[in-house]
């Protein structure tokens, strides 16, 4: 399309708009379908963004730390802990390493064994918290060295349980994106159906317009403009309701876990505002192709 046509399409033409009679059910169908789909798209977007944040957070937090577990007889535990700390101090890529105190270890076990846990009477391994620097360390190299110098040490870099968590969060994010694409496709299909119904109902109008010398692009524009504006208005209403719904969701909290973090955060609140624009673009494309195809059929 030329710039002139795009401009006339966007700005509208009061005279041209009137050549197609105000239609009944197709107008309501387009408005309702756009509103409903935009409402769903807001939640799919919220899910996708929240899952993305979760994946990033888990990945970031767990990737930068590791745990060294010293399982040794009680009389050797202190010596092996010191040896392990010495090895960690010399290992490039490790920012800091410190042995957890008895109180910290008791606090970790408290949820399962209660607060007054007598650590001295249990064969609890000594835990060393390892924080890596930006460069990161060579986990396999460290394991080999520890095996040689500290036989009771086991390095857990969290990969084993970090990977499925991050994969799950990423899958949720992909699911959200896929849902948005499906919603876009369903919107396009519904608007195409509504546009085809409107074109069929206005066959006589099209006949008269052709008789007086209207080009296909003029006829198509009259329908496209209507459906685009309806989709834009419907989607705007759907987004407004959807964002109100997201606002009413509980605030994110540690106690609530993932379920309470489903809202938008920061600039994320602006993302749903793109939905009406995308809805209008989908309606524009769907109606344009439907109109062109229909006009070719009845030529």
């Amino acid at each position: 399309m030329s710039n002139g046509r795009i401009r006339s399409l966007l700005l509208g033409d009061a005279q041209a708009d009137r050549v197609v009679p105000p239609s009944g059910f197709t107008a309501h169908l387009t408005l309702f379908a756009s509103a409903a789909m935009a409402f769903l798209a807001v939640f799919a977007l919220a899910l996708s963004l929240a899952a993305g944040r979760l994946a990033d957070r888990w990945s970031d937090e767990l990737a930068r730390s590791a745990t060294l577990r010293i399982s040794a007889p009680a009389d050797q535990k202190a010596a092996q802990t010191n040896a392990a700390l010495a090895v960690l101090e010399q290992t490039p890529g490790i920012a800091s390493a410190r042995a957890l105190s008895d109180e910290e270890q008791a606090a970790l076990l408290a949820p399962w064994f209660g607060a007054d846990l007598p650590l001295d009477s249990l064969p609890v391994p000594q835990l060393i918290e390892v924080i890596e620097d930006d460069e990161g360390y060579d986990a396999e190299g460290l394991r080999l060295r520890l095996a040689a110098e500290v036989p009771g040490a086991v390095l857990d870099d969290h990969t084993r349980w970090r990977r499925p968590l991050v994969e799950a969060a990423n899958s949720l994010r992909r699911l959200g994106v896929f849902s948005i694409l499906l919603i876009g496709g369903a919107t396009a299909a519904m608007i195409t159906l509504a546009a085809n119904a409107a074109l069929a109902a206005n066959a006589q109008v099209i006949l008269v317009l052709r008789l007086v010398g209207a080009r296909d692009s003029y006829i198509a524009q009259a329908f496209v403009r209507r459906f685009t504006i309806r989709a834009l208005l419907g989607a705007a209403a759907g987004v407004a309701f959807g964002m109100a719904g997201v606002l009413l969701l509980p605030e994110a909290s540690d106690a609530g876990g993932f379920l309470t973090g489903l809202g938008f955060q920061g600039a994320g609140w602006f993302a749903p505002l793109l939905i009406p624009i995308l809805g209008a673009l989908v309606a524009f494309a769907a109606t344009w192709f439907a109109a062109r195809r229909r006009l070719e059929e009845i030529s």
Partner: protein
Amino acid sequence: MIELENVGYSYGGGELLSEVSVRLMPGSFHFLTGPSGAGKTTLMKLCYGALLPTHGTVKVFDADMRRLDRDQTALMRRRIGVVHQDCKFLDHLPVADNIALPLTVSGRDKRAESENLAELMRWVGLAGRADALPPELSGGERQRAALARAVIMSPDVVLADEPTGNVDWEMSQRLLHLLVELNKMGKTVLIASHDLALIRAAKSQVQARVLRISNRRLQLAGSDL
């Protein structure tokens, strides 16, 4: 201006027109007559590209209709004013907007042409009916509105298919008079009609050729009219 050469048209396995050749010269006035179902409307539709011939060639303004795409056909139709028997209006628009429809679709500013539109409505006797909707018009008013819409773009050719089919004798004379006036302005006029009394009346006002469709073929009518 409009030239049909050895044109045939078939539909549904039957041949409606065969070996039709005619040339409408600029400023000429023609009647097309024949019994109902003879193919008058089909021939008119061939002249403005609503139908394409099965055989032969239709040339309008020296362009072969087969070679025109839909946009070119639309532009060609702006140079041809068509009056249908059933008028074909947009019933949701007032009469004035229907008459101005060719201006609207061609992108011309209707407000800039408002003077011409008012004059045209006076010419066809519809000055007081500008805001009426088409279903509110009588048969004669509809035909006059259709004629006004056909000529608002100042076309080179006016094709009228049974323009007096639904009106009384007095109104048919008035419509005929308007078409004769258009011809005197230099427009080429082709009127399809089975009303021989109308044709006889016209021949006293204008030099008209009468073409008759008989047995799918077109022939020049003789003195029997």
